[in-house]
């Protein structure tokens, strides 16, 4: 492959992905990391990208303001917080060890987590998330256990007494769930009673329940409360959440994992 051709390919990939790391580029283009780094220097000189630690980010992304407004339940591929969720998923994947049994709850963040678990060995994933089930169909290396139950089409997940009953019989090592609102006074809140029941059921039979939410859920209050901010012992989110929450979590011994990301 000629250098110019490779550069064009890298440009296209970065335009599509917005940000990418050297290792992935090197795999995609089948050239060494050194070559990729050299190419990235060229692209940075052109003003097309900014080199980051171990990768690159599209320059435009630094200029653009991210979209604001509430996040309606959308299909995973046109999510306005896609980049944030992908980064959360990357951290979540690092909390999972080979051979574990994990639970993924409803929501697109959990979908992204499923997508980032591809290089783990011998995982068993328990889920009520229909997006996750259809995604894992393409990954035959992972054992999938889907819970039964009523279909909640708005959330694209399985809920209700059948789902809860099913979860009662399963034990998981680590579970990932999301909520709709996080507020210092009102704690964690959800818009959906069905989902609340699922989270309560999973708390009983999981060694560890991790909250994975993007920053847009902070300082919001939804319909029904599940517990105060000490309800989950680990939280993964984006670093731009308000400082008060960082202080609160640290003082209350909750591990707070944040991602580096672009901020407005």
């Amino acid at each position, binding site marked *: 492959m000629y250098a110019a051709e490779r550069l064009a390919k890298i440009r296209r990939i970065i335009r599509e992905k917005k940000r990418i*790391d050297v290792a992935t580029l090197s795999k995609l283009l089948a050239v060494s990391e050194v070559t990729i780094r050299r190419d990235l*220097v060229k692209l*940075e000189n052109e*003003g097309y990208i*900014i*080199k*980051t*630690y*171990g*990768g690159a*980010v599209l*320059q435009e992304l*630094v200029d653009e303001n991210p979209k604001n407004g509430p996040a309606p339940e959308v299909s995973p591929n046109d999510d306005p917080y896609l980049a944030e969720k992908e980064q959360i998923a*990357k*951290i979540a994947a*690092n*909390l999972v*060890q080979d051979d574990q049994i994990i639970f993924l709850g409803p929501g697109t963040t959990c979908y992204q987590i499923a997508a980032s678990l591809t290089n783990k060995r011998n995982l068993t994933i328990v889920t009520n998330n229909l997006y996750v089930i259809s995604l894992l169909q393409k990954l035959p290396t992972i054992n999938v256990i889907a819970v039964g139950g009523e279909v909640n089409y708005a959330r694209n997940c399985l809920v209700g007494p059948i789902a809860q009953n099913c979860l009662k019989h399963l034990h998981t090592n680590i579970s990932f769930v999301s909520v709709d609102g996080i507020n210092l006074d009102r704690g964690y809140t959800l818009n959906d009673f069905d989902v609340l029941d699922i989270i309560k059921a999973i708390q009983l039979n999981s060694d560890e329940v991790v909250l994975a939410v993007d920053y847009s859920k902070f300082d919001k209050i939804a319909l029904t409360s599940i517990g105060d901010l000490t309800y989950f*012992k*680990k939280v993964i989110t984006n*670093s*731009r959440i308000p*400082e008060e929450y*960082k*202080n609160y*979590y*640290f*003082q*209350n*011994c*909750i*591990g*707070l*994992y*944040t*991602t*580096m*990301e*672009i*901020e407005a």
Partner: protein
Amino acid sequence: MVGPKLQFVNVTKKFGELNVLQNINLSIAAGSIHMITGENGAGKSTLAKIMGGICQPDQGDLFMDGEKVRFREPADAQAHGIHMVHQDCILIEQMNVAENLFLNHEPRLNAWWGRYRINHKQLYGEANRLLSLLPVKIDARLPVSKLGLAQKRLLEILRAYYQNPRVLILDEPSASLNRPEAELLYKLIRELQQRGVSIVYFTNRPEEVFTLGEQVSVLKDGIHIGTFPVKDIEYNRLLTYFAGADYKERYPKLRVQRGAEILRVEELGSENILDGISFSLHRGEILGLTGSAGSGRTNLARILSGLGKASSGTIFLDGNEITFRNPRDAIRAGICFITEDREQEGIFPLLNLKENITISDLSRLWNGFFLNRHREERIAEFYKLELGITKTGSDAKAANLSSGMKQKLLLARWLYKSSRIFILDEPTKGVDISSKIDIYNILNELVLAGAAVLLISSDLKELLGMSDRILILNKGRLVADLVNTPELNQQKLLDRLVQ
């Protein structure tokens, strides 16, 4: 003259919701050396500041010789003969020793017109008289910038002594000094006590209590645990006051697959300080390093980053033997050192944010004739957003940032340079909680990208929370290389620290 008796009665201080000091009842005998100790965050510095008039208590009173006193500002405390020497050095580097000693109190030629002119003869005469108290010789005409940290500390204490204090408050004066240097400090302090000054000495190092103190008060989580005569308290008992809950869960630890060995040190020694240090550092690993005053940990960091010289031993990088003639060699090899002394050795206070970041690699901005300022702006903007550095523009001077922001700025500088080995000396000292969490998560990000981190800290909880392995230095020797298992706790580390 013997210093006064000092008493705290029911002193409480809050910062926001946080109770920093709760109902402190404490009395300090006249003419003694009184140690106040406790782990980081126990409330020591706040208590020192209340004594020195820098902070006011929310409740409670301070008594001197039985009389109630109220300090609204440091000058009030000084009027009562209480002088404080701060943790951070506040000497003026460009002026010489004598000028610093008498700053704002210079002897004048006479009471008339001459009062606008400094009597230099008297200045140096007085300076030499004061300097003769020191256990080492310091030339009165030497610029302060030429002095080492220990000498600066001595000078600051001497400067406070010149004000004729009745009580001298020392807030962790031996911080970052090695053993022989700290000994000099102790000599001076004993000398001043002989001359009738009461000494209140704040320290987070239990071993210092036994070297220097007569009385010791222990603080823990803002509560006064007790005051004991030093000769009656056992070492182990004092240690139990230090070790508390470990709080490992509050640290965002990621267990990253350990990669290839990147750095190995064999039998490293440096004159009088380090002796036979061997360890290795792998990609994807956070290696904790701790040690008390004089353990040589900063010395080790400086050797690894090309700032100091080893007298024996070898350093291997990616399996190849390497020597650093200067910091530039180390930087080229991908090693960066972020110093504990952010103010003096870290940031460039007069440069703006973007210049402070890009200075580590200007070649990325160089177009052959000029620096591409537009690109510099973009790069700075990226890191500001990425690390949450500040809401202000990238033209702001670095000097005006908070400690946490300065630390993140230094990290940004070396991320930009794509360093592979990060040597961080006390990266979260004096940093607010929110920035602390950001820094821990930046460490995660680094190891995920295959970098290696040497995390030097005296915060044992932090080391237990974030490290994969922990090294302990004691008097220049490596006494432990421990895998950070869930069973490892502060008590076990402390036992090794002071054996």
